[in-house]
């Protein structure tokens, strides 16, 4: 039943066949649309001579089955990562695969294969023996290997993206169901990056230092949420999730409890920032009921990341729209000009308000004085410079807009509870003590 459906889809979409052909024409790689059983629904005709090797190697049904098993694995990976999978086949030839879905169910796949990333003349003896494995007719094989298209590694990445787009066009309604898979993997990637940063601490990385870092980051995320700084809040959320995963990855129930604690912290900050309490309570209630059905850590993490987005949307909606536009403009202005002399008058001029009116709006909407806003941006930048550059402290003070080093040290100490020098010596860990 699926074959006619898929076949109809290929023929029905008038632009589809030319698009599939165009892929093979531009890449030179033979392309096939297959159903879930590996049966060909559409095969590129213009490049048939280029899959000579495959036709030669698939002399019996056993080998055909083996190819299909490899394709199936590749499709599974493609669904898992939400992008086309580039892998090697049993003969070490390259292939790329993308799934075709119908309302979330796999109905077939696109397979672009075979191709090589290096010219056959550059193949190493072990790679050549892998190509010859189990095959006879050596002379014909040599000819077949030479017919395999060769594409550069950078071009292969682009072709994989094109293949995924073709699969999307053949899917019904599209491949949006895989977008969440990609989002989950991207989030996990960000978490792993944070874990790698912790690991770089070496001996200073332990359960105690993680707990201390958690509390420090908890304070930071509250400030970011209150400021309405979506990007900054997300960055800290990745770090908080990395801490929680480092502590409890092996125990899912403990992990869930920690995430629940995190959720309470985030929602409380959102209430302080102006989100309606009923909305926040609704979110907490939903988590408690939905969390029973969440069975793995990836879904838990993406759930919290989505929640943060919703909370930030809520904050933007409840804040006075006009005020918010001005605050956003003000924050952007500070981000760009933090290293210059920033008086309240100058900032107020930029957002077309009187200094006293601006000070009032900042205090009302963000809950902190304007001066603290400026300090926060400058100190955050100083922390990055202290970690990454070996500039003298006096130069860093200048770079972030404090001509007077002792004043910079005073402000830094007030915000970070340690001097810039201590922060540099102990790096990350200085935030923990």
């Amino acid at each position, binding site marked *: 039943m699926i074959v006619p459906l898929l076949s109809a889809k290929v023929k029905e979409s008038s632009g589809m066949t030319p698009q599939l052909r165009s892929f093979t024409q531009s890449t030179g790689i033979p392309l096939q649309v297959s159903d879930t059983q590996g049966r060909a629904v559409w095969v590129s005709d213009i490049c048939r001579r280029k899959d000579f090797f495959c036709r030669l190697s698939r002399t019996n049904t056993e080998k055909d089955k083996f190819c299909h098993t490899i394709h199936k694995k590749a499709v599974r990976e493609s669904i898992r990562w939400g992008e086309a999978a580039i892998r090697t086949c049993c003969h070490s030839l390259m292939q790329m695969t993308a799934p075709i879905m119908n309302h979330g169910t796999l109905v077939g796949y696109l397979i672009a294969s075979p191709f090589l990333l*290096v010219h056959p003349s550059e193949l190493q003896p072990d790679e050549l023996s892998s190509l010859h494995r189990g095959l006879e007719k050596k002379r014909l094989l040599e000819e077949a290997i030479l017919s395999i298209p060769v594409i550069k590694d950078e071009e292969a990445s682009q072709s994989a993206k094109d293949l995924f787009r073709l699969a999307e066009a053949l899917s019904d309604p599209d491949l949006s169901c895989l977008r969440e898979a990609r989002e989950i993997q991207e989030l996990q990637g960000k978490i792993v990056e944070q874990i790698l940063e912790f690991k770089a601490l070496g001996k200073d990385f332990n359960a105690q230092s993680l707990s201390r870092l958690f509390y420090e980051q908890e304070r930071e995320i509250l400030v970011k949420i209150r400021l309405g700084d979506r990007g900054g809040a997300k960055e800290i959320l990745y770090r908080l999730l990395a801490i929680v*995963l480092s502590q409890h990855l*092996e125990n899912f129930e403990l992990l869930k409890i920690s995430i629940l604690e995190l959720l309470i912290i985030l929602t409380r900050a959102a209430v302080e920032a102006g989100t309606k309490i009923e909305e926040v309570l609704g979110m907490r209630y939903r988590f408690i009921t939905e969390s029973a059905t969440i069975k793995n850590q990836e879904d838990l993490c993406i759930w919290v990341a989505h929640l943060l987005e919703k909370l930030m949307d809520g904050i933007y909606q409840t804040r006075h729209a006009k005020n918010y536009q001005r605050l956003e403009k003000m924050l952007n202005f500070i981000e760009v000009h933090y290293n210059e002399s920033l008086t309240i008058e100058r900032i107020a001029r930029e957002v077309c308000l009187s200094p006293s009116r601006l000070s009032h709006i900042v205090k009302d909407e963000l809950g902190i004085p304007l001066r603290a806003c400026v300090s926060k941006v400058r100190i955050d930048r100083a922390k990055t410079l202290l970690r990454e550059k070996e500039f003298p402290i006096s130069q860093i003070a200048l770079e972030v807009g404090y001509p007077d080093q002792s004043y910079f040290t005073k402000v830094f100490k007030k915000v970070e509870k340690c001097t810039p020098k201590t922060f540099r010596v102990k790096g990350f860990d200085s935030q923990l003590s």
Partner: protein
Amino acid sequence: MLQTLSQAVVMRDCKTVKDLTERMVEERVDLFVILNQGLNSGMLWACEQFRRGAFHVPELLMSSRALKIGMNILRPLIRDGERNVVGRVVIGTVKFDLHDIGKNLVNIVLEGNGFEVIDLGVDVSPERFVRTVEKYEARVLAMSSLLTSTMGWMKSTLELLRESGMKRVVRTMIGGAPVTSIFARNIGADAYCAEATSAAQTVKKLLGIEA
């Protein structure tokens, strides 16, 4: 020359990797220096590029190929120098995880230090790990994972090892980008390997062999 070799791995320049490795071998540069400071360091840099999104799968595959070409020159020489097998190690990437670059580096380092390595490849189930350890009477089981979602299989493998009574006779070591010493301790692994280059030292320490 080591830096150029490392750079050639990153740039996927297989010909330069081959020529430079051969030249350094001729000039009697220490094989482990070529391996660690030349080939491995280039591969680690390529992995870092991949993590940052500057490299995609094809580029990483080509860097990995360049590394392999260099290793094919070094491997027989390293084996010649280290004829005494110090121990047998079963190694693999855990179930549902298809990443093998880090594991392959560990494999090379262990072989280079005189260990006999039984490499099970990627996507290895707990049952297969335990069966192989039992069959080959391995002294060490080394597991790798590159995804937070597959790290749980390390715990499952250790549990199965415990159930089968093998945990007492085999020492376990884990590693991979998201794996930490805290996780290793929490799941009861005997050692955590922070980086491929320290794998041999970690295993020797586990077995009470002087490093």
